[in-house]
């Protein structure tokens, strides 16, 4: 009896750890989204497309370099950079002229960008799905309480905190980050002090896009890389950001944790309706705290 | 008719209204004066329900109204204009006033009757009264600033209020517009018997039309009394009138 209970609870534990590693991806993508939302006030639906592009770029890099660990690291570097470059073009070319538009307009504008980027991906990479394998180094599983936890999930579990610390440093320890934080609260004030807010916005936008690209690159070995992978992710990322509090990076972290955990535990408890639980969690949170769990910068 | 008893409201730690007292009796014109940031607008927001006081009481016709939502307070008989122009920019002048009248007549939930021309008589008479009749079909967004301020008053009149609250009705107006506006306020009081509570920075204007004056400084009431009493009050002279030059 006792051993059975043990087995069930260690199964729960692996499920939680797998859920947490998925949370890492959600956190990376939604922290980028919330950064852009908090500082530039743009509800960027194209963020999902950037994530998808990150995955495709990573796939191309890995396939060109023939797999292996160097190719994997190259992909993790190139994908965020490529997406950041694309973000830079979008910001300078469009958004920098449109900051004062109504949120609804910006939402629809970014949706049209998502439509365009989706088709561009189709043109460049074709309509078939692609896949890359986990590099040999990460293949296999660690034993955890007698149950396997894939090394790659373990790796993701480490990446999450690294990114969180990195973002904390960028925001609190660099001049640009501090200005961005101030601009999030009151951009007029910042420009009144004589700082060129335009470049702060551009920096923030590019950083946010790079995070989307990184998320895409990290997910690449785990899923089929396909058109449409942006749709479900961007919805989840938005819900996470809303739940956490608009513009709050720690809110994105908390939201991702809640979203990821309710999902993995939900699947454990009731397989058919597992994916309903995170949505339910968001609704419950918003019913009681309509402005999100943590303090929003809005 | 209206009575504010030691109302307090803080934004964060800052007490914008700090123990203000005010008494308005039916039929009179009362002015609130005070330097910038004294809390006049905030006090009006408290009276009309846009904010609710942390403590203190606000009574209208003997009934407590503090904490009620704005639309309920409006229905009790208080209408107001705003310091910053606050109208329905995409609607015509006529429609701006029409909504106020429809609302007073409780007709806003009628979903199948034709709104066009509804209540036209009353809307027209209000517009004639304030001098905007000729512009009745113009989109209100396109009016001059002065006309928009007057439209503010017209919208407030659509509610047929017993107490009319005007927050700096002449702010930003050209001299002749100001003149017209003063005459309008006087006429509303004399012909319609409206009770009017307003605030203004132009002291000359205040002494010209107000029967009684309340002086507000840093959220509190310094004095409320007749023009003479206020003029003679030392504290007011030093705190306020001194800097604008005596009148």
């Amino acid at each position, binding site marked *: 009896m006792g051993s059975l209970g043990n087995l069930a609870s260690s199964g729960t534990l692996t499920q939680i750890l797998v859920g947490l590693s998925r949370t890492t991806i959600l956190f990376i993508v939604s922290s980028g989204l919330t950064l852009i939302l908090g500082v530039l006030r743009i509800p960027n639906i194209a963020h999902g497309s950037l994530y998808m592009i990150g995955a495709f770029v990573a796939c191309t890099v890995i396939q060109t370099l023939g797999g292996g660990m160097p190719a994997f690291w190259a992909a993790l570097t190139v994908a965020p950079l490529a997406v950041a470059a694309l973000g830079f073009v979008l910001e300078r070319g469009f958004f920098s002229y449109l900051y004062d538009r109504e949120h609804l307009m910006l939402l629809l504008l970014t*949706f049209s960008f998502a439509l365009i980027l989706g*088709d561009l991906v189709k043109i460049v990479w074709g309509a078939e799905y692609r896949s890359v394998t986990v590099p040999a180094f990460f293949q296999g599983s660690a034993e955890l309480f007698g149950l396997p936890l894939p090394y790659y999930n373990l790796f993701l579990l480490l990446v999450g905190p690294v990114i969180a610390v990195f973002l904390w440093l960028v925001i609190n320890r660099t001049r640009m980050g501090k200005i961005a934080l101030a601009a999030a609260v009151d951009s007029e004030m910042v420009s009144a002090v004589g700082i060129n807010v335009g470049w702060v916005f551009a920096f923030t936008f590019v950083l946010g896009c790079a995070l989307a690209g990184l998320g895409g690159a990290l997910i690449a070995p785990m899923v089929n890389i396909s058109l449409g992978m942006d*749709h479900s992710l961007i919805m989840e990322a938005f819900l996470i950001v809303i739940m956490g509090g608009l513009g709050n990076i720690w809110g994105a972290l908390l939201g991702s944790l809640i979203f990821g955990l309710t999902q993995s535990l939900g699947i454990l408890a009731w397989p058919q309706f597992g994916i309903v639980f995170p949505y339910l969690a968001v609704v419950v949170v918003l019913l009681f705290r309509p402005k999100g769990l943590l303090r929003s910068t809005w | 008719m209206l009575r504010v008893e030691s109302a307090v409201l803080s934004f964060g730690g800052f007490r914008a209204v700090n123990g203000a007292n005010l008494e308005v009796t039916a039929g009179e014109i009362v002015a609130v004066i005070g330097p910038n940031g004294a809390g006049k607008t905030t006090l009006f927001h408290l009276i009309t329900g846009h904010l609710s006081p942390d403590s203190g009481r606000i009574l209208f016709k003997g009934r407590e109204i503090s904490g009620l939502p704005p639309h309920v307070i*409006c229905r009790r008989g208080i*209408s107001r204009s705003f310091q910053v122009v606050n109208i329905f920019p995409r*609607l015509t002048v006529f429609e701006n006033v029409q*909504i106020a009248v429809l*609302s007073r007549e409780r007709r806003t939930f009628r*979903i199948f009757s034709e*709104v066009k021309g509804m209540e036209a008589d009353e809307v027209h008479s209000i517009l004639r009264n304030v001098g905007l009749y000729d512009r009745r079909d113009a989109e209100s967004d396109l009016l001059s600033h002065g006309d928009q301020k007057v439209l503010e008053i017209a919208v407030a009149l659509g509610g047929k209020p017993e107490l009319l609250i005007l927050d700096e009705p002449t702010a930003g107006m050209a001299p002749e517009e100001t003149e017209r506006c003063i005459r309008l306020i006087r006429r509303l009081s004399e012909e319609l018997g409206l009770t009017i509570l307003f605030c203004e920075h132009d002291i000359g204007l205040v002494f010209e039309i107000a029967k009684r004056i309340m002086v507000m400084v840093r959220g509190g009431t310094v004095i409320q009394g007749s023009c003479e009493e206020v003029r003679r009050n030392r504290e007011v002279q030093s705190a306020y009138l001194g800097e604008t030059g005596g009148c």
Partner: protein
Amino acid sequence: MNGRRAALLLLLAVLVALPHALPRFYTYVAAIVLLTGLLATSLNLAIGYGGIYQFHHAVFYGIGAYGTALMLTRTALPAPLGFVVGPLAAALLSLAMGVVCVRLSKLYFGMLQISLGSLVWVTVYRWYSFTGGDDGIHGIPLPDALGSTGGAYYFTLAVTVLCLAAMRRIAASPFGKTLEGIRDNPVRSAAVGVDVRAHQLVTLVIAGFFGGVAGTLFVVVDTSVFPDMMFWTFSLEVLIMCLLGGMYTFFGPFAGAAAIVLLRVFASHYTSYWSLVLGVILTLVIIFLPDGILGYAVRRHRAGEARSA
């Protein structure tokens, strides 16, 4: 004004004649245009007239469709009852969602609404035993009169015209005018005694109801339902229809819906990149004509009138 009425009558005549002139497929497309136009118009009541950020309107379309589909497939009750149950279910859901959402304003309203809508979507998406899950329900049996493409088309036409007339009536009523006031300035509206939330709630119920009617019509035309009907991307697409035609006009959203449905049908004949085409058009409209195409035309027209007056 009279010219406009004549134009509408002419359009109606063309629509009535359509099935006789067109092959069956295009009759089907025309019916889809009609019901999608109805859907966009219903959303516009909330967003264009009321200024309410109804981000996930497709949920009511979906619930209207599922309500009808489930009545037709899982019960032996008479079909007309199913046609009524769908829209009523949508209106009821709209009421329930509205009650919790109207406490909030603008973006926060939209965010709670989209979260609730996603919850509804994901439930329908996973509830295989009841809703058919991600497969949806296909081959829904209809009464004989609606079984043919022509029958379904005429039914759709009649219902759409009726609903548009009703909504037009509502838009031109005291309620509609008050709603425009709330959109322009909710604070002012409250200050003249309007109970803003109550009006918004009624608007949401009306919009949800007509959205549900559109969903029911989809069942009649397509004899199927599937969860993608209420996926958030479709909600945004309907928003886009409103924007494209013009949110501050009554018929703009209908025109926008027609444009997008037809664009999809015809552009996908020539290219598999029709969303690229749509995306580019949209970007241009949003940047250069934020009032929408019809809205822009109306503004020009008004400006012309003002100049000649």
